[in-house]
């Protein structure tokens, strides 16, 4: 048995945990080894100190101080409302962090709007300047056309310029644009445009062109005219007995015709309707009550002809319901 083995057994030897044979061997080694003997004595002495250590007395008034602390804590919790914070488990720091995050998000959200607005302001200039550099020929041609085309066409130029500058930057874009401008100038008939913009009534009353011409004009000017007619509201006064029934009937008819009730205000209904369905709609209204119509432009023929060419366009109607007089 070597020294380390014996020293590892000091605790067991002291507490009597070793088997008799093991204990005998350990004691034999201790008797023969001076160093281990010394270690064993030191170990024994230290253990004696530990086992004979006197327990410390508890300070006087220990329990009373606990009671005082308890009372003080109770009072403090009630005064400061700490019980609420503890029960809610919402540390103030966490709440502050949430506030900061929201503030940061808010500020970040604001910033992109600014930059977008700046871009919106800057980009056309950039686009225009780049277009100036890239397509001097195009500009010359456009200006030439402007000079030769009557004033109403200026509006078209404006529309073209307002198109996305990205498209302008694309290679070959200028060729297609020039081609398009040329075609438009060829097709456009200046007096008709002028009259149409000035007064739709005059246009409708104007000499009836041949079917091919009329189709051509309508096609070329359709965008402008339809947008104009869309802005106009056709006023319809309907005299009926039962307003509620009439409302329901008008709603049904509108939906059946592919239209929609946009707004209801008292006895007034605002509805949109495909132009192609207008004639039928008018007939249906006549069945509901007595009809009187105020037109933004005269003549049903005009409406019907335009509707044929642009069946998908819609018209806005304002239907006034007047009660008390039987149809």
């Amino acid at each position, binding site marked *: 048995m070597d020294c380390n083995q014996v020293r590892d057994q000091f*605790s067991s030897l002291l507490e009597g945990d070793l088997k008799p044979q093991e204990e005998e061997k350990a004691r034999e080694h201790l008797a023969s080894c001076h160093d281990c003997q010394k270690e064993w004595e030191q170990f024994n002495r*230290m253990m004696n*100190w530990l086992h004979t250590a006197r327990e410390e007395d508890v300070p006087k008034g220990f329990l009373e101080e606990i009671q005082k602390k308890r009372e003080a804590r109770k009072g403090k919790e009630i005064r400061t409302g700490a019980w609420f914070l503890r029960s809610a488990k919402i540390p103030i720091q966490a709440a502050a962090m949430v506030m900061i995050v929201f503030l940061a998000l808010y500020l970040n959200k604001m910033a992109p709007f600014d930059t977008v607005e700046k871009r919106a302001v800057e980009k056309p200039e950039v686009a225009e300047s780049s277009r100036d550099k890239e397509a001097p020929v195009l500009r010359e041609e456009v200006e030439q056309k402007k000079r030769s085309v009557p004033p109403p066409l200026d509006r078209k130029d404006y529309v073209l310029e307002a198109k996305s500058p990205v498209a302008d930057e694309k290679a070959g874009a200028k060729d297609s644009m020039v081609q398009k401008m040329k075609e438009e100038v060829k097709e456009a008939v200046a007096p008709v445009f002028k009259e149409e913009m000035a007064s739709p009534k005059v246009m409708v009353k104007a000499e009836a062109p041949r079917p091919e011409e009329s189709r051509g004009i309508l096609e070329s000017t359709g965008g402008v005219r339809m947008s104009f007619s869309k802005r106009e509201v056709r006023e319809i006064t309907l005299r009926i007995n039962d307003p509620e029934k009439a409302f329901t009937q008008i709603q049904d008819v509108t939906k059946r015709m592919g239209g929609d009730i946009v707004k209801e205000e008292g006895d007034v209904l605002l509805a949109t309707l495909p132009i192609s369905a207008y004639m039928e709609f008018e007939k249906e209204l006549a069945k509901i009550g007595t009809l009187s119509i105020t037109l933004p432009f005269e003549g049903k023929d005009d409406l019907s002809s335009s509707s044929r060419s642009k069946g998908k366009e819609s018209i806005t109607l304002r239907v006034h319901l007047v009660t008390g007089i039987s149809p």
Partner: protein
Amino acid sequence: MERSPKIQKEVIEGCKAGDESAFSEIVLTYQKKVFNIAFRMLGNREEAKELSQEIFLSVLESIKDLKEDIKFESWLTQITLNHCRNRWKYLKRRQYFKTESLNDPIETEDGEMERQFFDPSDNPETHLEKKMVQQFVQRGLLKLKEDQRELIVLRDLQGYSYEELGELFSLPEGTIKSRLHRARMYLKEILERSVH
């Protein structure tokens, strides 16, 4: 070394129900044990007093969660050790123990006193010498690692059995024995080094 008497089950139930006298009885029964563990773990009477009082307040707050009344002592010791560990960390962060040396002035109930040349190998006879030995050992304990100190305090100073220690630390008895032996040998080395 004397063990605290076991407390009646009814007292624990009374404390759970909010009975003030039951709580007082628990404090009076275990105050010496809790205070001494805290003192041996921290080496300062004032710190030990404050901490022990905190421990009993914690006991009062959480006793309703104690499911097995029979394990009250083990549960109390666990709370005591946890509080000591936390307090030890707190004091260590503030370098409370950094200047501690076995030759520093000795703290006594009457205040601090200068250390005289002291060789514990002499047989301590007088009261003062006995006190000096205790202080000497206490300072040696504070030089140990925390888990080693816990084992020596509970086994050699408080008289816990190996079974209780195994349950407390969730370790087999054999492991407890070998760790305790290493801790004792280390403490012996510390004490011998400080003498020679």
